[in-house]
């Protein structure tokens, strides 16, 4: 299972029977690995309940630098996209927005920071908005650690400080080097500390089932400000 922490008994063989009087995992047979499912098995075919399906597949995010390697259909055909002038999407291979970007939370702040940005004990621990990038990309763009960086998508342009770290690493996809950057999204225009709003970069696209927007994978451009 690699780095994953298994939810089932690690040494139970696939053909091991479950103990009907057993407690907890002992009651499960070696085939019932998916403990969050009522029947304990993973489904390749979901007959009801989903807008998409019934078979799983792989679609690329709405904005991506690569073609879907698995399937001719690039994106989900049933995703929601609110068509507005300020909500335009980047097409694959657009040289103006070459970098993959992901957004995430930090442990020091809560959601968009509306509460935690007012608490000095928390703001001193994470005081400023930053963009994490690899030393390779920083060198390419002439960006030094703590430089101000301009991050842009067709929806918006924001500024953040560069945090150059080797934790970020370039991908090699189909022989081409692709850079990824990451930004936390806890800042706003009020509070003890303030910063630009990262969600101004994201696109208003929703997944077909629960309309969660795609803030974990899209593309952007990065320039030294």
């Amino acid at each position, binding site marked *: 299972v690699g780095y994953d922490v298994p939810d089932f008994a690690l040494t139970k063989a696939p053909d091991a029977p479950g103990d009907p009087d057993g407690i907890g995992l002992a009651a499960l047979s070696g085939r019932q690995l998916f403990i969050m499912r009522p029947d304990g098995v993973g489904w390749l075919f979901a007959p009801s309940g989903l807008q998409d399906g019934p078979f799983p597949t792989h679609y690329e995010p709405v904005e991506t630098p690569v073609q879907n390697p698995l399937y001719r259909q690039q994106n989900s055909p049933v995703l929601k996209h609110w068509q507005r002038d300020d909500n335009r999407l980047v097409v694959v291979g657009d040289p103006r927005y070459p970098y993959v970007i992901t957004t995430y939370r930090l442990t020091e702040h809560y959601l968009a920071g509306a509460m935690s940005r007012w608490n*000095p004990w928390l703001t001193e621990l994470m*005081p400023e908005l930053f963009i994490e990038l690899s030393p390779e990309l920083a060198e390419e763009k002439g960006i030094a650690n703590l430089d101000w960086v301009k991050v842009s998508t067709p929806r918006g342009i924001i500024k953040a400080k560069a945090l150059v770290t080797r934790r970020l690493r370039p991908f090699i996809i189909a022989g081409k080097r692709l850079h990824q950057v990451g930004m936390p999204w806890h800042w706003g225009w009020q509070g003890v*500390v303030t910063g630009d709003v990262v969600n101004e970069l994201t696109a208003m696209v929703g997944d077909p089932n629960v309309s969660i927007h795609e803030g974990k994978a899209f593309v952007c451009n990065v320039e030294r400000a």
Partner: protein
Amino acid sequence: MAEAMGFYTDTTVCIGCKACEVACKEWNQLPAANGGVRELSGNSYDNTRRLDGIHWRHVKFVEQFSPDRRDGRWLIMSDVCKHCVQAECLEVCPTGAIIRTEFDTVVIQSDVCNGCRDCIAACPFGVIEINPASGTAQNEAGQMHWRLLRPLHTGVLSILIAVLGGLCGFFLAGYTGALLSVTNRPLWADTTWLGLLFLLSGTSTAAALLMLLGLLRGARTRETIYWLCRMDRGTLILELLALIILTVSLGPALRTWMNVWGLVLLVGVVLAGILIPLSLEWRPRLLGRLSLPAGAVLVLRGGFLLRVVVIVSSEGV
């Protein structure tokens, strides 16, 4: 002497959330640097930078990645005072402000510190700094001492539970005797002193039982046993008085006890259950190390016999 205490951080499960830093600041009411407005440090996720007078706990983030990322670790360590066995800060302190406590921790007493900064130079880990508010040397250790003491003695909740629980306990201890008085059985209905007698007997037996348990746990409870012993002596005397008053108040009903039960009461309860344990607790040298446990056992046995006599003797009438 309290047990030696230390603070162990398991770096293999630490995720670097810094909640310990915030908890430390909250407990000790330390200010945020510059009101919380700081520049990004640019060093991984570490914006605390170092331990100082207002940062008594510092979560370090150490990135060790080879240029090709084949070898990579993100090390996270919650750094704090080590409470050294041979504490240099304590050795160099000219005012004696730095002491070793009963928990084997090293504590800076800021009200004794004169701010000379010798300890800052002496500490090999850079733990101590001047607190700008007090102008004295400070680190986490001082306030941790109060944290260690606190759960043992104070706290509004523990006081509340102790007082309410004590009241309920005393009420319950006297209630059985009072309940017997409202029946129309001879002996029980003839006096109103049974409740008090049962209460006092319950108190003395409780003290004896706690004493026994404490003796089993050894030297750590010595002080508590001393106080329990004093309490037991007092309640035993009161119990004897209450028994005499009860006997007198019985009047003609006293003949209920003019039989073998009266003898059991006199020998089993008064002599072996009150007077002998009283003298044992008063003069512990009588039986050496066995004095206190023997006394406690006798008190427990006496309390039991008292109830047996009161209940069974009434049945015989």
